[in-house]
């Protein structure tokens, strides 16, 4: 009897744990394509699994609504949520996970209004492609694989990354702090209006191309050629320069925002 009780406790604890966290094995997966319209936080961990959890912004509200949540849960008993975007195969987490070759597609099925942020823990070397939709933002840290992110109004924040990075946003701010710069393939960071802030190690070898109608601020030594000839009609200005005798291509383009390029 006691044994059964312990077992029951164990099972319930697992079930409750599953509610807060969803794990998915990543054996054979090289790239994760994530789509969600919320605040996405990605962290690198010593794991071979994908660990998905809610990352609600305000825990206090969460607690206060606990009673309400319980009522809601009672209502949902015996029913399953269905979504127009696909089938939920994450135990009620509202995500659809599909595998195609060595690519794993993780698609958020819930709308932006019901999500209050998600958190994913992924292997450090995983290649990531994340799209935060119209309103979502992306923040990630510690990845050494290729990172590809796109947001519309949300902010893009990266720390301790190596590249290759491909980031695009329309209005969101971009902050990228490189640990070191991978020489494998180009780094592209672009935005329409917002400012872009990039920090590179001082010894980074790169061919830098900066383009903005705003202003570029840097503490790197740039050899700016004196311009002659036709004035630029569109106001489009490009600065090309080699850092430490050149290396991988780094494009930083903002239509109107300022560019901050920092030396670490």
């Amino acid at each position, binding site marked *: 009897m006691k044994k059964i009780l312990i077992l029951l406790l164990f099972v319930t604890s697992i079930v409750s744990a599953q509610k807060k966290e969803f794990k998915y094995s990543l054996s054979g997966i090289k*790239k994760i394509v994530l789509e969600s319209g919320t605040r996405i936080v990605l962290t690198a961990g010593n794991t071979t699994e994908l660990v998905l959890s809610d990352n609600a912004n305000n825990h206090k509200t969460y607690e206060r609504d606990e009673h309400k949540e319980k009522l809601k849960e009672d209502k949902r008993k015996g029913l399953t949520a269905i979504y127009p975007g696909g089938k939920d195969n994450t135990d009620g987490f509202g995500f659809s996970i599909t595998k195609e070759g060595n*690519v794993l597609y993780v698609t958020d099925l819930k709308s932006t209004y019901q999500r209050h942020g998600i958190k994913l823990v992924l292997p450090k070397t995983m*290649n990531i*492609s994340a799209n935060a939709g119209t309103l979502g933002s992306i923040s990630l840290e510690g990845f050494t694989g*290729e990172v*590809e992110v*796109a947001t519309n109004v949300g902010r893009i924040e990266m720390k301790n990354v190596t*590249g*290759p*990075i*491909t*980031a*695009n*946003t*329309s*209005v969101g701010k971009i902050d990228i702090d490189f640990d070191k710069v991978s020489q*494998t*393939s*180009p*780094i*592209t960071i*672009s*935005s*329409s*209006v917002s400012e872009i802030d990039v920090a590179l190690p001082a010894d980074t070898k790169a061919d830098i191309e900066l383009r903005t109608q705003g202003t570029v601020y840097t503490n790197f030594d740039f050899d700016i050629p004196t311009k002659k000839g036709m004035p630029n*009609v*569109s*106001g*489009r200005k490009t600065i090309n320069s080699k850092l430490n005798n050149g290396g991988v*291509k780094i*494009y930083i*383009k903002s*239509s*109107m925002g300022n560019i901050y390029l920092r030396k670490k």
Partner: protein
Amino acid sequence: MKCNHIQNKLIGFLENSLSEVANSEVKEHLKSCTNCNKELEDVKSFLNILDNQKTEIPSNNLRDNFNKMLASEMANASPKVIPLKPQQDWKSYLKVAASIVIVIGAFLFGKHQSNITKIASVKNEHKEQVLALLENTSASKRILAVTNAEEFTKKDTKIIEALINRLFFDKNANVRSAAAETLAKFSSEIIVRDALIKALETDKNTTVQIELIQILAKIQEKRAIESMKKLLENEETPQYVKQQVELNLPSLL
């Protein structure tokens, strides 16, 4: 007949060079045949005349003269012989040289030819690589391919088509805008211009829109005026894109 046969052997008979059988045969016949005896006498007297004839011996002067002449002739001929020899050598050297030149030439030509094909094949290989890279799952690799595509000429329609394909259908805005930028370098091609105008009408990403507005203004594509005006009229167009249109449109008018 018999007499003829005997008469043919008379000289041999007189010089004792006949076989014994033939000798006795001639003797027998001469005993009975007066005609042949007469012939024998004739041959004998003819041979006697030949024998008695004194052999003329050339004087020693002749030999000396001849030797002198030979020496002088040799002296005359030798200067001619000397230049002849090197001339012959020169010719044969020339022949050897020519054959070497031909061989080396053929080798170099072949090498050059193979180099040409090699360059062509390397270029082709490179083209295939770029085309393959344009389909890579990594956005960064696709951008690399798009910028590498710059080095091809406008004759590489496959490359241009692949770039246009990227411009329209790539999921990543940065790839689309890089494709637009590279395509701007092929703006002498009408399909490229058409594609850039069409992309301005269809692309929803503001970064790409702004890139296209700037490119179309730069290549002075007047047909884009209409699309730009449409963007201005469209309520969904963000203010900052409209700003770009307002900034660039005057240069086309």
